[in-house]
């Protein structure tokens, strides 16, 4: 049993001289300081994500139709454009691939610099990142193709389920 004098106590003037006992847990001050730091990091991350969301996610892409309609305003600025790859227009080139995308009745020719992703093929919806080549041209210069996936899932070989482990 320890005596009070070893450990401190309340003094006559009301102040405390209680001593800290060595323990396994970090002190309250330390826990609180690191928690406040964590809250600051979280707030910084929130600001960053909201900035990204407001600048990119609200208008993630223009459809090919909207892009042509808003061409005067878009000029040669960089944006994302969505459309379906028109079958029969895909032409591999030395630097990438040329093709057209369609949205409703609007068709826009695309010149892609760089390799398209593995699922790129005719008739799939894609989002291309780039800009019109000149303020007057309808040709869209792209440096990135994103393949949009539909929410439908269909078995590749419905009658050959034993082949499931293989590729289609």
């Amino acid at each position, binding site marked *: 049993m320890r005596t009070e004098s070893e450990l401190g106590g309340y003094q006559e003037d009301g102040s405390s001289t209680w001593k800290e006992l060595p323990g396994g847990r970090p002190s309250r001050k330390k826990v609180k300081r690191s928690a406040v730091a964590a809250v600051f990091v979280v707030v910084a*991350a929130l600001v960053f*994500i909201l900035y*990204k969301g407001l600048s*990119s*996610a609200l208008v993630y892409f223009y459809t090919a139709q909207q892009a042509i309609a808003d061409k005067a305003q878009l000029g040669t600025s960089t944006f994302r454009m969505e459309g379906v790859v028109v079958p029969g227009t895909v032409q591999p080139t030395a630097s990438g691939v040329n093709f057209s995308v369609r949205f409703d009745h609007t068709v826009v020719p695309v010149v892609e610099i760089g390799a398209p*992703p593995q*699922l790129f093929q005719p008739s799939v919806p894609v989002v291309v990142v780039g800009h019109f080549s000149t303020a007057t041209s309808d040709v869209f210069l792209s440096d990135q193709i994103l393949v949009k996936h539909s929410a439908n*899932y*269909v078995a*590749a070989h419905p009658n050959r389920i034993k082949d499931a482990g293989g590729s289609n």
Partner: protein
Amino acid sequence: MNRRRWVAVFGAFALTTVAITYVMGLWVTPPDVFQGNLVRLIYVHPAVAWVAYLAYGVTSLSSIAYLWKKTRNYKWDLLAASSTEVGVVFTALTLITGSIWGRPTWGVWWTWDARLTTTALLLVLYLGYLALRRVTEDREQRAKRGAVAALIAFIDVPIVHQSVVWWKTLHQSATVFNADLNPKIHGEMAWTLLLGFLSFTAVYLWMVIKRYEIAKAEMAAEEQGIEEAIRERVGSL
């Protein structure tokens, strides 16, 4: 059987259903006509995302139960915190599995479309909730602040779910929980998808029960610790 034994048996059951989901997803189900073998991620990714929604739903209900005076009890606060911790793990898994699928399918690991942005927001909001809980040592203050923060963070859950409808996104719209509740997936693929939802939900329940028990034990130890510290200084009371 005692309670502990039941929890252990349930845990074994949950992990077994996950194992069956993996076997079904990797070997039994067929490749997709367009995605090929990449489709196999659908047995995991939407299920873990659903568990994150569920976890935050439980957090919100527990927080309301704590804030409402008639049902106020620290146990609700501990349940809210436990469910959030598991929810954060599953939100991170949602982002990681989505990213792994996005790279070969879309061509990028990450993009700032509305679904991805609001999901990243969801993770950070609940990390903020967990950080906020550590700022104060006062149990009542912690529980109150936490409950209010949890309810504010929950606003993002319906936004995440509806983001693919409200904004133009690269992420596809819902396959199962779509507007007509008509899943656009069939046969074995649909059954395996359902099994994935059930198995990850079971894993969630098991993890929350375990975490909640630990939280209760921590609270008991803390109370005992305070008593011991007093005893050590002023002798037995």
